[in-house]
């Protein structure tokens, strides 16, 4: 090495040493932690470090197309947008250490829509547009991040969840895998005229549990499984030489190969079937069995649902509860989303409730009057977690008050028995006595309608609280007609009553999401807790649930599920599609965080709690949680604006 080269080299080392600090800082954050070292070093070398005093403007919409890319090194940058309808501004986002801005404007070669201000004394790394473009073209990781923005952050969280699952289970299996991608064996098929014996021989030779009967176009017209065979054998009159057509299950259920493993699992659970045909363009392309789906899991959803539905005694139901917990654990580990899991829990809980009712009727004798078992609150919204209370009631038809009184007297002992049995199955008795065994909640349709009308007419604090429980209702067992008529009447009354809506809106604003202007999170200390915490349910989910309920009731939407309500509100044009999508993602993330916490608590034999110390989350999760809570804040301010509160 010549002397000159040696000096250049020494100078280079010095530079590297000095940018090392900035490099190490950036390597704590995505996407920089995944970028190639040389690309990151180039980025840092091209950076300038700037200081902005609290309140100082960094970029404004008036400056025209954005010329620089910024990374917050220290401090906090806030986005302020002027209200369209009234004076003042609204903080739309917050960017802290390791986060960058303004990607969309930079890539779109336009001005920012939002003024970026230093929220406190702040240092930013500033990269000029030419260097940004160079890094963008060099580094795939960076490009991917820049193009996908925050949604790529969410993807990373999902990847992390799956990663953890792979670590614990040693498998790549995911519930979101399209069925077509699962390695399936070629389906065994035959024509409808084949003799039963021949068909069974085919199944035996191929070692499969099902055979699909197809027509000339290869469209499935029936399916014959080992279960059907059992029935045939048990039936003395069955002829093994008869065509299979006579014994098959006609019009089998099918899905497209693009449907997910989760869809198949849900279909099997709902329909009590063990095989689903895959059909592409009307042609059979595969069969997926319960065993294909759950070969890797000891606890299986379909089997569990069936066992619950056919449990012979209450004790068996009680012992099955533990398996639901294990199933949820596995589903979460397999990367199931919070929505999928609440759906599964709701489904299994519904099965349990139905079975408890059936067993109670068998034990105590049929009361001789038709009735519907209603559920309210989170159960009504299909948003149950493992940690769940009873909120139920009974609806029946009666001609007049006297008849209602007589039917009530007959149903109440049964209802109380059911409540008691449900408690044994792990559905905690409701402290507020919102239970069917309570005479005030075992009502005829007319009585329910009067009760609901009272809530809407006299919006006292108690009635507002009640409406937030009772207005999320659905039928778990029994006829659904009466409940739908009740709901229609309710929706009409709410739509007409602007004052009630306004009171509900006021109520929906009471739980403020725990994010402040100055600090990341606004935390409180409970009792003698070591760490300050926030409540994921009350402070995180409730604002979305309350907001979605109010808007749904006011716009005649019959759905009870929060996400479903949001989707229908978008369809009806009540909320902006982008806002709705953001609310949905945020709600979803908070729920997911809450469930992961519950799973952890149950593993560690700790009581369930919704209180979370944000510092226990990793950096990425903490950042997304903060953004998610900010979406709750946005939903609330839109309600405040809509109802002029």
């Amino acid at each position, binding site marked *: 090495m010549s002397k000159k080269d040696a000096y250049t080299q020494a100078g280079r080392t010095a530079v590297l*040493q000095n940018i090392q600090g900035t490099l190490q800082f950036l390597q704590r954050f995505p996407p920089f932690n995944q970028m190639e070292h040389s690309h990151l070093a180039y980025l840092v070398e091209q950076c300038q*470090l700037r200081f902005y005093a609290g309140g100082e403007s960094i970029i404004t919409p008036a400056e025209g197309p954005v010329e620089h890319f910024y990374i917050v090194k*220290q401090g906090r940058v806030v986005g302020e947008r002027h209200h369209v309808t009234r004076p003042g501004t609204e903080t739309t986002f917050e960017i802290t250490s390791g986060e960058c801005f303004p990607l969309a404007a930079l890539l779109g070669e336009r001005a920012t829509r939002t003024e970026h201000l230093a929220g406190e004394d702040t240092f930013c790394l500033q990269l000029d547009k030419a260097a940004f473009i160079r890094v963008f073209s060099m580094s795939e990781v960076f490009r991917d991040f820049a193009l996908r923005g925050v949604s790529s952050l969410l993807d990373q969280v999902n990847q992390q969840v799956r990663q953890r699952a792979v670590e614990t289970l040693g498998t790549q299996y995911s519930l979101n895998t399209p069925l077509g991608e699962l390695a399936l064996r070629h389906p065994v098929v035959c024509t409808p005229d084949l003799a039963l014996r021949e068909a069974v021989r085919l199944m035996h030779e191929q070692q499969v549990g099902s055979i699909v009967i197809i027509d000339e176009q290869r469209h499935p017209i029936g399916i014959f499984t080992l279960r059907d065979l059992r029935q045939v054998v048990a039936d003395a009159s069955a002829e093994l030489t008869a065509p299979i057509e006579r014994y098959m299950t006609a019009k089998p259920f099918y899905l497209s190969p693009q449907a997910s493993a989760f869809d198949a699992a849900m279909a099997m659970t709902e329909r009590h079937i063990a095989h689903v045909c895959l059909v592409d363009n009307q042609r059979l392309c595969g069969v997926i069995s319960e065993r294909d789906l759950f070969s890797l899991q000891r606890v299986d959803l379909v089997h569990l649902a069936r066992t619950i539905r056919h449990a012979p005694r209450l004790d068996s139901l009680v012992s099955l509860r533990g398996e639901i917990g294990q199933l949820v654990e596995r589903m979460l580990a397999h990367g199931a989303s919070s929505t999928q899991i609440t759906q599964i829990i709701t489904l299994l809980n519904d099965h349990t409730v139905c079975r408890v009712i059936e067993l109670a009727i068998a034990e105590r004798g049929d009361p001789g009057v038709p009735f519907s078992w209603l559920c309210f609150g989170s159960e009504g919204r299909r948003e149950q977690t493992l940690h769940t209370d009873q909120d139920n009631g009974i609806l029946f038809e009666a001609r007049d008050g006297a008849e209602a009184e007589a039917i009530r007297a007959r149903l109440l002992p049964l209802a109380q028995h059911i409540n008691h049995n449900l408690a044994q199955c792990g559905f905690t008795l409701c402290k507020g006595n919102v239970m069917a065994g309570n005479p005030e909640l075992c009502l005829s349709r007319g009585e329910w309608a009067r009760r609901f009308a009272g809530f809407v007419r006299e919006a006292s604090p108690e009635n507002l609280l009640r409406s937030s429980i009772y207005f999320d209702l659905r039928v778990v067992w029994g006829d659904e007609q009466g409940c739908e008529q009740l709901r229609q009447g309710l929706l009409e009354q709410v739509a007409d009553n602007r004052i009630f809506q306004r009171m509900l809106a006021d109520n929906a604003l009471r739980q403020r999401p725990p994010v402040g202007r100055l600090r990341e999170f606004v935390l409180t200390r409970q009792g003698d807790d070591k760490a300050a915490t926030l409540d994921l349910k009350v402070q995180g989910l409730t604002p979305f649930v309350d907001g979605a309920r109010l808007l749904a009731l006011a716009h005649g939407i019959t759905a009870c599920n929060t996400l479903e309500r949001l989707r229908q509100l978008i369809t009806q044009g009540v909320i902006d599609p982008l806002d709705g999508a953001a609310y949905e993602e945020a709600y979803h993330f908070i729920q997911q965080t809450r469930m992961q916490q519950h799973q952890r608590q149950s593993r560690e034999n700790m009581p369930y709690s919704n209180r979370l110390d944000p510092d226990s989350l990793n950096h990425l999760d903490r950042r997304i949680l903060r953004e998610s809570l900010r979406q709750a804040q946005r939903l609330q301010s839109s309600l405040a604006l809509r109802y002029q509160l």
Partner: protein
Amino acid sequence: MNLFAWLRPTAPELDAALQRRLDALPGPAPLGVCSLREQRWVVLDLETSGLNLNRDQVLSIGAVAIEDGAIDLGRPFERTLRRPEQKTNASVLIHGLGPSALAAGCEPVEALLDLMTFIGDSPVLAFHAPFDQRMLARALKDSLGLRLQHPFLDVAELAPMLNPDTVLREAGLDDWIARFGLEVQARHHASADAQVTAELALILFSQARRQQLDSPLQLEQRVRQWRRRKAQHHGL
């Protein structure tokens, strides 16, 4: 031969190329009335063999330029000087420059020329600037026969002057780093110290602007007043 020539210190002999570079160095520009942002500044930090201004030597130099109100991260200045004669003493514990690092260093003459080229005509900022100023002045005189005339502003004076509410007695760099929540990569590493001093300077310039001190000249005049008042205060 001049009669007094023997009284003058012998000017160090430089080869022609170095001499040309020395001659080409610009002199300092006087502090002007441009804005703080328009002024280019150089933030300097020296690691020395000790605190004795007459005996100790400059071992390494770190410098960072502030241009257009921002620190250029890709172009910091750093040189370790070749000091083979330097005995290991207690200060090695602070700056961590052992004999091998110093032996592998760059010729002091070249290092100092490079530094003066980097500084150009810009004013210099340093924490406890008088120390760096005198150390550098002696090194320049010994190695290059050059008189240091650049204006120095002391960050250790600017900080308490602009933050009268912050009560810190005899505050050192670490105190101000903590006060503003800055992060340092490696303290007592010349370029890392220069870097964090520069970050401190950015904060101070922003404060100065809010106190209507938006030119190098105004800032320097205010420092003089402040120093005088402080002396009087202490006198009383």
